[in-house]
């Protein structure tokens, strides 16, 4: 592993962490069906509608950055877990049009259908992206044989289990992670609504209750996931350079790379503080939970994704052929390409800065029904 490979794994992990945070949009979409009051439903959709493209773009950039830095993952996971990725794509296509079309006259299918699309994306998008992350820890059934390229009748390098991703969806460990992501997203969404919508005390109290319920379920799922992960074996490169199964690999990663362990702990505490502080009775509702839980989410997911790849760990283990497992070292682009991309990544702070500035300007005042009814809206 060289420093640029380490750097790019960190960038990809950071993008993944930001994506999980931004899934609050998807989490928020799952509330659409729970709200009977049309005015409130429109408020929810419009407050999410001003952020959906950010989540969408982060997913696209995450894909692009993974392609540029670790092309073997792109060719193995995407081409292999075909149905898993296709279902994710399907849900995001439906999302992309639903905001703009839902209340437009002549939209053919009616507002209700577009709202169902948004809910579908909210549930399926979160769970299946969680399943994808699950394969990074719990592995998949695939092989990589570069020499296949020279076999004109069967030239495919990366071969995956015949179920092509459906088996990953059926794995309970992956699903545990998937539902954990879903309830985290719902918790973040409720915190976001509290922060960004002004629809009276009743709405705020209701969202506070949602934080307590969804946050509670999330914490239980997170503890279960942590227990499974920390007692599971991982795959890593041994001293002879061979990839093999290693017991308690992730415990060893989090202790050997102590800063990752600390970051994980700090992240978890931030997430919990955001939830608990919002749940605590106080005058009115505390509006800052989204920032604590959001930043905590980014720190936690970043630490977990780093732990999936650093310390000689196979970040996409092959359970049937460990030597085919993908590591940061064997799946990355060349030093030259990573260097070019590293220069490009120097502009990321500029991007983050303008996104932050625009967010600040646009969210300076909470969204109200009056604004939704009088201005351009979804």
């Amino acid at each position, binding site marked *: 592993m060289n420093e640029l490979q380490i750097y790019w794994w960190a960038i990809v992990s950071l993008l993944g962490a930001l994506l999980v945070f931004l899934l609050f949009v998807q989490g928020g979409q799952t509330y659409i069906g729970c709200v009977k009051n049309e005015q409130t439903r429109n408020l929810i959709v419009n407050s999410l509608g001003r952020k959906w493209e950010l989540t969408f773009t982060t997913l696209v950039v995450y894909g692009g950055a993974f392609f540029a830095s670790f092309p073997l993952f*792109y060719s193995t996971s*995407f081409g292999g877990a075909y149905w898993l990725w296709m279902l994710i*794509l399907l849900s995001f296509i439906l999302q992309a*049009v639903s905001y703009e079309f839902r209340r437009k006259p002549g939209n053919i*299918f009616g507002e209700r259908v577009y709202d169902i699309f948004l809910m579908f994306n909210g549930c399926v998008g979160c769970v299946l992206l969680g399943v994808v992350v699950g394969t990074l820890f719990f592995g998949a059934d695939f092989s990589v044989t570069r020499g296949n*390229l020279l076999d004109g009748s069967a030239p495919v390098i990366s071969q995956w289990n015949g179920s092509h991703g459906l088996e990953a969806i059926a794995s309970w460990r992956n699903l545990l992670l998937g539902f954990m992501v879903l309830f985290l997203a719902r918790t973040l969404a409720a915190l976001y609504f509290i922060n960004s919508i002004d629809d009276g005390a009743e709405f705020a109290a209701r969202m506070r209750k949602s934080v307590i319920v969804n946050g509670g379920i999330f914490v239980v799922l997170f503890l279960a996931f942590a227990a499974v992960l920390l007692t599971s074996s991982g795959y890593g490169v041994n001293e002879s350079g061979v990839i093999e199964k290693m017991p308690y690999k992730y415990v060893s990663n989090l202790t050997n790379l102590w800063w990752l362990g600390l970051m994980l702990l700090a992240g978890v505490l931030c997430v919990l503080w955001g939830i608990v502080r919002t749940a605590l009775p106080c005058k009115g509702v505390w509006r800052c939970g989204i920032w604590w839980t959001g930043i905590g989410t980014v720190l936690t997911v970043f630490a977990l994704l780093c732990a999936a790849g650093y310390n000689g760990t196979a970040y996409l283990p092959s359970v049937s052929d460990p030597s085919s497992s993908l590591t940061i070292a064997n799946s990355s*682009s060349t030093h030259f390409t990573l260097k070019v991309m590293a220069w490009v990544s120097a502009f990321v702070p500029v991007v983050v800065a303008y996104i932050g500035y*625009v967010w600040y300007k*646009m969210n300076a005042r909470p969204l109200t029904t009056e604004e939704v009814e009088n201005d351009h809206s979804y």
Partner: protein
Amino acid sequence: MNDLVSLVDWSRAQFALTAMVHWLFVPLTIGLSLIVAIMETMWYRTRNEKWLRMTKTWMKLFGINFACGVATGIILEFEFGTNWSNYSWFVGDIFGAPLAIEGIFAFFLESTFIAVMFFGWKKVSRGFHLTATWLTAIGVVLSALWILVANAWMQYPAGMEFDPGEMRNVMVSFTDVALSPVAINKFFHTVASGWVLGGVFVVGVSCYLLLRGRNQEFAKSSIKVGGWVGMFGIILTMWTGDGSAVQVGKVQPMKLAAMEGLYRGECGQGLVGIGVLNPSKKPGDDQKEMLFEIKIPKGLSILARHDANAFVPGIDDLIEGIELTADGDTIHTVSYADRIEAGKRAQEALAAYGKAQKAGDSAGMAEATELLKADYQYFGYGYFDSPEDAVPPVALTFYAFRVMVMAGGYLLLFFVAALFMVYKRPGWLDKKLILWGGLATIAIVWICSEAGWIVAEVGRQPWVVQDLLPCKAAISGVSSGSVMLTFWLFAALFTCLLVAEVSIMVRQIRKESKRDILNDKND
């Protein structure tokens, strides 16, 4: 083997479907984003309420269209992995970079500032809003830039070398990839064609408003902006189209031959203006190429070489490896049979490299590397059994080229006429026939735009990466049945989205036509 053929066909069909549907929305986004930005600039400079209302009206149509472009765009990016996984590894070291740069530089710019465009009217200053509108337009163009750099690289691979140990191509010069002449030309040609499409859309919709008898001032002012953007766009498209023909002649001569349905070339080759191909004609036989044709003398030599007497090779000439000098002397180049042999030798050398590497035989590795280097430029031909395998579908390329060129010529006249009428003969814009013509041109510009991509992409078949990787070696290891299923799934979904978008767009335009846009007190 049959399943492999079927898988390649369905994978191609799925990518073609996605790309063509994506391209229905993207050029309108490119064109309208610029037109809206110009209108808002006019408002910012003059403070004339008319321009603000025009900006907001066209922005509504821009917003309806934008979402579909985003929705289909994400599939294209991910399909490189899901359906072309071998490709993703074989050239991922080079191809991934433009995609990532596109995301970092362009997509965030678009997605951040488009929210300001639509929701920021009362939240930010006029200057900030105008900046956001321009940044959205710039983001759209930047996004086109990087995806076209990636596409151009597939047509003209540059700035890379092959790494036999990893069995993939690796980037050695980013500037050669990003600034290749093919990429630059393709970028201007494509973006300008988006401006043309946006211009026609604005002029065409304005014609509809005039037909409905209201909004005279709105429509005529829109025709002026749309007309000038379209006029600039069509001139740039034609100029870069000429450059593109020269480049295709140099780097993809087989595509040029297919575009012309040309099997035997000559010095001072004519250009088929109108023609009907002989459908039973095959490479190497003695049948006539055309059943009917009207040729422009020496036209193709001028178009492809900028030299009236230059030789332009046909399909059979290329297969046989024959070129002629200006004096008519024959020069032998590498025939396709020899290329196939060279490709197979390169693949054998690569296999030998792998064996030597496994055995730790460094001398064997060095020897295999030398052999591989000698023939690597024809690596992809090693997958073919006969030279005919390397010939693209001639009919589709030929007719699509003619549709593009003829429609392009018409569009130049269209913009000249539109600008002439709106400035010098505004009375003519009351005539129904003229207005219906303007409206109908909306369909023509879309056909023209799609035909251009068919020429570019069908004409380069069977290659994914020119000369190095054919489609059949670039695929993923999924079953053809799975891809067939997702193809129909996407086909159904895209049809629904398209119908919904057109319906919303039409309803919105009708709604606008029923009110006095520039003086509506409820706005």
